């Protein structure tokens, strides 16, 4: 993730001393993850990019209040979550039912867009990402934070406002639901992987 030798705390201190331009390193370091997390809530790339941009601007404005009691990434992901929930409340988006036939057909169309010579790894990643998108925003965010966010159960609990034991239970259930979705909508790919 790091694109320079500086830690997050060192970068923040330099920004607070007036080197605003160095904030670009923070953006590059976390943009993919923030964008992915936001996409779990909106499923629309334009909205996701707008929200992700807003997250970084809010984080920049509030940098002086980052006390260093937790990792910067944990603090940033809390801003992500708050921004996403605010966006959802404003737009009053429906969380598409995971068994919605229309959603499945959309996925089918996307899947058929893959060329026959797509490498096996890319197909597998696409399948997993699509399956994660079928989950509820909370489940998909939880899985993304655990597997991609380098966050412990306690840190995820802090982000989502839950006890770490509750996070563990929710994670188990989210993975179970993910497995079910993969078996239901991607049974062919799952069988190929099993060999």
């Amino acid at each position: 993730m790091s694109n320079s030798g500086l830690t997050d705390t060192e970068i923040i201190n330099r920004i607070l001393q007036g080197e605003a331009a160095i904030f670009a390193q923070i953006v590059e370091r976390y943009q993919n993850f923030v964008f992915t997390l936001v996409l779990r809530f909106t499923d629309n790339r334009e909205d996701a990019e707008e929200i992700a941009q807003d997250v970084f601007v809010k984080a920049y404005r509030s940098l002086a209040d980052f006390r260093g009691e937790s990792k910067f990434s944990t603090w940033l992901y809390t801003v992500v979550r708050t921004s996403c929930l605010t966006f959802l409340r404003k737009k009053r988006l429906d969380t598409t039912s995971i068994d919605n036939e229309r959603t499945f057909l959309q996925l089918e169309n996307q899947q058929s867009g893959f060329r026959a010579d797509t490498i096996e790894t890319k197909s597998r990643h696409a399948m997993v990402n699509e399956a994660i998108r079928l989950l509820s925003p909370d489940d998909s965010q939880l899985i993304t934070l655990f597997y991609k966010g380098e966050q412990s159960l306690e840190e995820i609990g802090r982000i989502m406002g839950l006890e770490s034991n509750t996070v563990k239970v929710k994670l188990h259930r989210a993975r179970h639901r993910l497995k079910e979705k993969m078996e239901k909508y991607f049974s062919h790919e799952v069988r190929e992987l099993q060999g």
Partner: protein
Amino acid sequence: MEERLWDYIDGLSSPVERSAIDGLIAANMEWQRKYRELLQVHQLMNGSELDAPSLRFTKNVMEEIARAHVAPATKNYINKNIIHAIAGFFLTMITGFLVYCLGQFKWSGHSSSNLVEHYNIKTNLNAEIEKFNWGKVFNSAYTNIFLLVTVVLGLMLLDMYLQRKRQENRQKEINP
């Protein structure tokens, strides 16, 4: 079974539990099958890729923050002079209150170097103190509210002071 296997895969099991599950996986086909199934899901999720925003994303963010500024830390919003003024006000109130209470005593006595007279004055003073109705002072609603507000403000000032000290110490650790 699934919960135990997930804890095993995530590395959250205790050493005792780990070796018990190792044994179960080795000896039991059901456990073995389930373990392979869950491990595969785990590996798939570990291998999943992040989505990337547009190439202009960083540039867009930096253009946006060029218009913004880092808000000063909350502690800097507060003007220290105001805090000193409030503290001064309450100290004055407390002092005035004490002066008022002490003014309720009858301090009159004879000026005499005679030890007996001096002793009598002291005894009178003690009697006056005992006669003074402290309940009238401390049972008053105004007094109670005043004391409560003073205590709360005192605690807030203490918290702000300790918070500032901690920030300074942290700064010293980062920039020795």
